[in-house]
């Protein structure tokens, strides 16, 4: 039987598995989490019972449907929860789970690896009590914990308002929502954002509810720093208002993020071709209209491919499965894929309106940061060291800068710092961001206990 492997069990991975099972296959589904759902529809552990309405709000029905679909697949797939892929080469995936390391071979591979927050470091971002926006949401959904008693949510993107709303609704005293994007862009983007159907209305609802609850919301701000109170804990966020006035707000936690960044390290290890997306300012795996990568047998889906959100991820997950079924000659999927693409395209238009108008990425924040600002939080490497590598050593390629400074070489493999690292390199070299190349991944793409290497060596 053909071995089809899906990496990721979020909206894209689940819908891909569903279609493959329906067509008579038994795919392997590799999931880093303990239960399917991905980050967006993350389920609490079995012992923690929560009302889906409280966890997922407007998306409760969608989340429950996805979970139900996956639960019904249980006997028909080879599900591997709590399992990470740490290396990949040719048709082999190296995985690690609670029992140790092993590998599996695939005939067709669907990468549905999702995304994480896109981070721009600001002074104080490495302090305890500062988390990503996504982290703030995971804490709430997965652990029923707020990141603090009085958090500030800082950055830009739709998640900013959604998470602030979720916190407010859970009874948390949200200190402020600080958005780097000006209000004017959102107004201009509104007509195009209609492509997202009710998504725009939901966003407006969150804002209205936050305003009604008296939460401070500021657009067009520039973050200055997160300052400590006594005992090296988060105490204050300093920012400049759109009018240029320096303002402070007291808080005990910060959730920060500037849109999302695709998790693409596996695709990179497998040598698929990448294209630079100028509106998202990041490199993404190149795919055709079916979600096929440049490498035969490898397909992509979801936010790990195009950052168009959870609903688009369900559609592109289904599309990747249909592409596999078409390519192996099981049936002609052209009509199905055409219809899926019509719906995916709507979400891409919505995404583009958000990325280019409503919530533009404030790349100048990274480009103009102070030399002393820590960019790599794994190893504590500052922006100045990178600029020195560019100006002093004449390096203008991000992987060379990495070799000189170790930025991107730490435990996270550049997941957190690569966005800022590329912006700083480009501005120091006087180049467009598309010209500094992309940070290449290295196995292991997640840290491994040394015991795994000993087991490998013994084999």
């Amino acid at each position: 039987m053909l071995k089809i492997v899906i990496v990721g069990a979020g909206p894209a991975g689940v819908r891909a598995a569903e279609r493959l099972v329906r067509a008579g296959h038994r795919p392997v589904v590799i999931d880093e989490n303990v239960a399917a759902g991905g980050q967006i529809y993350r389920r609490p552990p079995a012992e923690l019972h929560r009302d889906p309405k409280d966890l997922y709000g407007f998306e409760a029905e969608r989340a429950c449907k996805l979970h139900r679909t996956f639960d019904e697949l249980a006997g028909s797939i080879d599900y591997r929860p709590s399992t990470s892929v740490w290396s990949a080469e040719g048709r082999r995936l190296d995985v690690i789970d609670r029992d140790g390391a092993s590998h599996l071979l695939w005939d067709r591979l669907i990468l549905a690896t999702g995304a994480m927050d896109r981070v721009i470091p600001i002074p104080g971002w490495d302090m305890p009590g500062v988390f990503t926006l996504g982290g703030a949401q995971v804490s709430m959904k997965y652990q029923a914990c707020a990141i603090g008693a009085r958090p500030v949510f800082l950055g830009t993107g739709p998640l900013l308002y959604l998470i602030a709303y979720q916190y407010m609704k859970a009874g948390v005293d949200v200190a402020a929502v600080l958005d780097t994007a000006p209000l004017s862009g959102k107004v201009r983007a509104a007509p195009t954002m209609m492509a997202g159907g009710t998504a725009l209305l939901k966003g407006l609802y969150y804002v209205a509810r936050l305003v009604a609850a008296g939460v401070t919301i500021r657009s067009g701000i520039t973050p200055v720093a997160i300052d400590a109170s006594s005992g090296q804990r988060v105490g204050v966020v300093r920012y400049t208002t759109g009018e240029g006035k320096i303002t402070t707000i007291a808080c005990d936690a910060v959730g920060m993020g500037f849109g999302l960044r695709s998790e693409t390290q596996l695709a990179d290890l497998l040598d698929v071709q990448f294209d630079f997306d100028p509106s998202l300012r990041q490199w993404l795996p190149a795919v055709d209209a079916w979600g096929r990568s440049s490498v035969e047998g490898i397909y992509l889906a979801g936010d790990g491919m195009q950052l168009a959100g959870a609903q688009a991820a369900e559609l592109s997950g289904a599309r990747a499965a249909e592409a596999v079924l078409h390519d192996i000659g099981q049936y002609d999927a052209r009509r199905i894929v055409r219809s899926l693409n019509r719906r995916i395209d709507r979400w891409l238009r919505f995404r583009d309106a958000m990325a280019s108008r409503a919530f533009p990425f404030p790349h100048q924040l990274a480009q103009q940061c102070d030399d002393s600002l820590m960019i790599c939080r794994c190893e504590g490497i500052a922006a100045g060291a990178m600029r020195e590598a560019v100006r002093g050593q004449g390096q203008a390629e991000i992987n060379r800068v990495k070799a000189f400074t170790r930025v991107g070489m730490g435990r996270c493999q550049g997941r957190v710092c690569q966005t800022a690292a590329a912006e700083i390199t480009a501005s120091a070299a006087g180049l467009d961001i598309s010209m500094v190349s992309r940070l290449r991944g290295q196995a292991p793409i997640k840290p491994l206990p040394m015991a795994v290497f000993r087991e490998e060596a013994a084999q």
Partner: protein
Amino acid sequence: MADSGAQLVRIAGAERPPVRCRVNGQAISALAGDTVLTVVLTQAPRLRKFEFGDGYRAGFCLMGACQDCWVEVNNRRVRACSTLVADNMDISTEIGARA
């Protein structure tokens, strides 16, 4: 843990069975379904010392990507955000110096 006071604030789910574990040798009562990160940060403001400079860390992405929250559980290195607590677990956050 020089400082007292928690970073994380529980907002629901208090009615779970307790789990007994130790953090740096001190007996602690956690809740079934807690991650190791939740166990520590609902009691303390930080998770570990930063091994490449001054300061402390308390996790960042909480989804297994940033690798900021590595601690030791029963003498094995784990990501605190993606490890669920179990009875009799021995959690040590004092590993910064030996990275």
